[in-house]
């Protein structure tokens, strides 16, 4: 036989025990990042590389968000300078299409970014949806989560109570949906502007420059920034997502320093 003999019950125990251990360990994290797209992965990688305990909560089975595919279902993704330096950091090959515009292979870039975040120590909770936020002393102090399928089924057959995870800092990197921010908006704790029309040339700088703490304990990154501040949409170019993730990590480190200080 090619493989060792392993009984089914031990396969089950291995899955349950490892998952339970990971979940128990991350009932409290330094940073919870909601959304495992390029901005969330970029932020998670930066933080984990600095020894921060990071959990990414992703509602889909897969990570990477829109980073697998460029635009119109074509799997070439573009970044504008200086974001190509992030591709260099990750060891992702690319070509310069025209001055300042770089193009790379979506699957290659996305898988490298995911691997790099995981290698740095980020832990992932996928198929998990954020339903609400934990508030302590007028600060966001965690998220309320449930299995993604629960929200897709009729309420009558899914009386599944959610559970909570705590964190010193939460990053909303859920794209235009801005799911964590939306939870605060539903509670009347925050208002948002909603994103504007696509304007590639002007939007990337604005998204990066607006990345930061939008509510005490909550940082917004990636296209969630656009939704919060009414910035233009970006279209199929990803440099701002990668740099916004890095900026969010810097902001989180500052908050963590403040919390410890």
């Amino acid at each position, binding site marked *: 036989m090619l493989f060792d003999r392993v009984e089914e019950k031990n396969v089950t125990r291995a899955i349950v025990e490892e998952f339970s251990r990971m979940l128990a360990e991350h009932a409290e994290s330094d940073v919870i990042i909601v959304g495992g797209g390029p901005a969330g992965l970029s932020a998670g990688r930066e933080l984990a590389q600095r020894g921060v305990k990071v959990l990414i909560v992703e509602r889909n089975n897969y990570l990477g968000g829109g980073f697998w595919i460029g635009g119109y279902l074509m799997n070439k993704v573009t970044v504008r300078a200086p974001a190509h330096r992030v591709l260099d950091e990750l060891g992702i090959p690319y070509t310069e299409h025209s001055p300042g515009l770089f193009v790379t292979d979506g699957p290659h870039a996305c898988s490298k970014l995911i691997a790099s975040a995981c290698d740095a120590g980020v832990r992932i909770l996928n198929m998990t949806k954020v339903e609400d936020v934990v508030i302590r002393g007028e600060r966001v102090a965690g998220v309320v989560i449930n299995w993604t399928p629960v929200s897709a089924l009729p309420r009558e057959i899914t009386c599944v109570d959610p559970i909570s995870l705590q964190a010193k800092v939460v990053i909303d990197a859920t794209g235009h949906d801005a799911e964590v921010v939306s939870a605060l908006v539903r509670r009347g704790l925050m208002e948002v*502007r909603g994103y504007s029309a696509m304007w590639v040339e*002007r*939007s990337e700088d604005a*998204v990066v420059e607006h990345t930061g703490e939008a509510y005490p304990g909550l940082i917004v990154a990636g296209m969630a920034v656009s939704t919060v501040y*009414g910035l233009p949409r970006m279209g199929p170019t990803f440099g701002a997502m990668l740099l916004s993730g890095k900026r969010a990590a810097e902001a989180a480190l500052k908050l963590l320093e403040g919390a410890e200080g």
Partner: protein
Amino acid sequence: MKVLLYSDAGAELEGVREQLEGIGIRAELRGDFLKRFAGEAGECARGLAGLRLGMPCSNSPRRPLPGEVEYERRVLAGECTPGGVVYHALLLQSYLRGFIPAHEAGLDVVHVVLTERLIATCDAGVPHLRVVVLGIPGLVSASGAVEAPARSREYHLARALMSEAAAEEVSADRLRQGDERLSRVLASYAVQVVFYQIFGEAFCNSAECMLYDSRWQHEVLRAQLSQKLCPKHERMLGRLRDAVQ
């Protein structure tokens, strides 16, 4: 008459002053308007953040979000340049007017504020980007000169039917960020501010005159870039030259 020229980071202050001097209008450089007149940067950041235009837009200031105030603080501190944010042109003008000291508030003192900020007026909930807003102070937007005048019909057709690259090819001759012709164009808009304040003449009907209210990029490149005046406004400029201190 005195012309005072201000600029926030990046706008082509010295170049515009030189261009104005070439036309025969001597202007005093004043640096950044808000840094000169405003007190607490924090208060300014809050004020500016409330002047952003949303979609749909409105003609009232809005309560700024903390992140918007922080962004303005960073712009004022020179930590980043304004981009992707559109401000209500008339509210911004009114906000800045409040800082002009009484001894420089007379009609014989022309304040021209060059800005990197995008400015727009709001009509029935729809924002319209502007290059220039006449009045006190007069606002001239460098990024507006690139973005506000409409690009050619061919550009929009190529963009809709082909690609951005194809659109760029068919609209090769238009102003772009960092365009070396910008200071010349901005100087023409500064002249519009001066004419409006001194003579009450808002625009000229001649498409060859730099006071023409250009709506298209090709019109800007004809009227504002040429820096020519029609005979009537040339005569008025002569009177103006004599009046500038």
